[in-house]
């Protein structure tokens, strides 16, 4: 039996994740990740060695857990006053596919709103999804912000 993952299955998970983030349901968000998953927001456009580069975010599971604890803690005033967000993820292409794994490239357009101001946060996103005992999960997500090399102002939610 084929173990390949269909794009429709992949987009379902990607949209589920996007919806969890817009709703700031961070506990549920933690569950869409595999244990060894990496959540990365690089700075340099041509970065090919995230571990040895400065990133905006380079989160393994324990950093993701800490990040979520902080966002929910009520002790972070930027999280308490976080912008509300609406995001769409689309323009999917499959960049790699193997047994129980699929890599998808997508575009994410996010509009945030806070204190009479709306801003657009645009990014290319690379996903690597794997099928394990817990079903399909995110093994790597790299968010390539369009403006990553210029100033990026405070973001009190997750991308």
């Amino acid at each position: 039996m084929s173990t390949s993952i269909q794009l429709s299955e992949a987009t379902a998970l990607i949209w589920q994740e996007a919806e969890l983030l817009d709703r700031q349901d961070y506990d549920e968000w933690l569950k869409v990740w595999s244990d060894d998953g990496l959540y990365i927001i690089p700075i340099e456009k041509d970065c090919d060695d995230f571990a040895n580069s400065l990133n905006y975010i380079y989160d393994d599971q324990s950093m993701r857990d800490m990040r979520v604890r902080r966002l929910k803690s009520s002790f972070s005033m930027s999280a308490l006053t976080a912008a509300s967000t609406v995001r769409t993820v689309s323009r999917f292409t499959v960049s790699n596919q193997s047994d129980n794994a699929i890599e998808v490239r997508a575009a994410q357009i996010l509009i945030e709103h806070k204190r009479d101001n709306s801003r657009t946060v645009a990014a290319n996103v690379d996903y690597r999804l794997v099928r394990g005992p817990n079903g399909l999960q995110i093994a790597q997500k790299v968010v390539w912000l369009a403006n990553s090399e210029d100033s990026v102002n405070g973001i009190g939610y997750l991308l």
Partner: protein
Amino acid sequence: MATAFTRQNSTEFDFDHLVQHDRVHTSLYNDAAIFDVEMDKIFGETWVWVAHESELPGKGDFITTHVGMQPVIVSRDRKGVVRVLLNRCRHRAATVCEAKKGNAASFVCPYHGWGYAQDGSLRGVPMADGYDASFNKSEYGLINLRTESYNGLIFATHNDDAPSLDDFLGKAKPWIDLFMKQGGGYPVSTGGEHKFRFPGNWKIQLENTTDAYHFPVVHKSFLNSLDSQAEELFSFLDGDGYVEDLGNGHSVMVMIPELVDLDANLDDPIPDRFEELAEELRKEHSEEEVRRIVRAVGGTGFNLNLFPNIACSMAFFRALRPISVEETEIRHIAITMEGGPEAANQMRLRLHEHFQGPMGFGSTDDAEAWERVQRGSQAGPDLWIMLNRGLDGDGNGPGGSNRGDVSAETGMRAAYGEWKRMMQA
């Protein structure tokens, strides 16, 4: 004196009234006319930090940045001399370089093709016979600012009459030397940066690097994310730290006294959060090296605030750039050990990401607080920004200088004292 045109006459303002020893007037945050004077009288006159030498190690290496509002190129010329050049073509003003960094044999203006050497001299003019005999290329080089450096920190000034950088830094120099010990035996190098803007005046940020008072409030969520040992270390408000006025607007805030000299106390136990790193380093380094590197990885225990735009802040450089009276750009520049162990440098990068940046556990809350300061300053335009914490420390430092406890506003008073002196000069 290089600044030619003062948009606002500074004598319109009564700075003796607006800037008092223990308070400054709210208009310093939101009066655009005062901002214009600042750009001329402060950023147009004093030494402004532009780069760390590791950003341009080789001949022909350059970065682009700003001195106040003015775009500049910091370039290492073919003789190895660092030049700070106004990024403005002498023909009809186009920027000659928009790359953030790189290596270039020359800078060619994209508009009509004037070509400049790495030292700014004008070399090539297309169709030069269209100019008459009085045209002399030597008169049209990129403007060179006066440039000097200290222990890797490169500064530039528009003011040919400014005191030497050595004199300007003065008592801050030994602190710069201490700060650079976080190379752990390797040269200090920049390792990428987080850059962000906030809708607020630049002096809100200038104050913040010498403000320990906010730490347990604004950074509670960061403190909660640390192990208990580290949380204890960063709970420095009840410790023996202090803030000292170093003259010329500079100040140092010592938060963790035992981390002032990173070469000292090498026999102290290795903190839990560095134990894994130490174990990794032991594979290739002696115990003494391991201890020195591990101690350096966490950074120093102090913030050195250099007026007006750069701080050596515990484990990173923090540079500010005024954009407008109510917008400021901040760069948190990471530090790595040039040629140092990969595991140690990775840990430095991860620690930087933990606190700094638009999604860090610390900076995000700082930015929110500073935005709130600017918004709040719209109310009560005749009220004052209070700087009266720790006044009893005035005169208590070495040589009768001002030195208050760690949460004192001594450093802010030092900065505003210099601000006033320059604005009235």
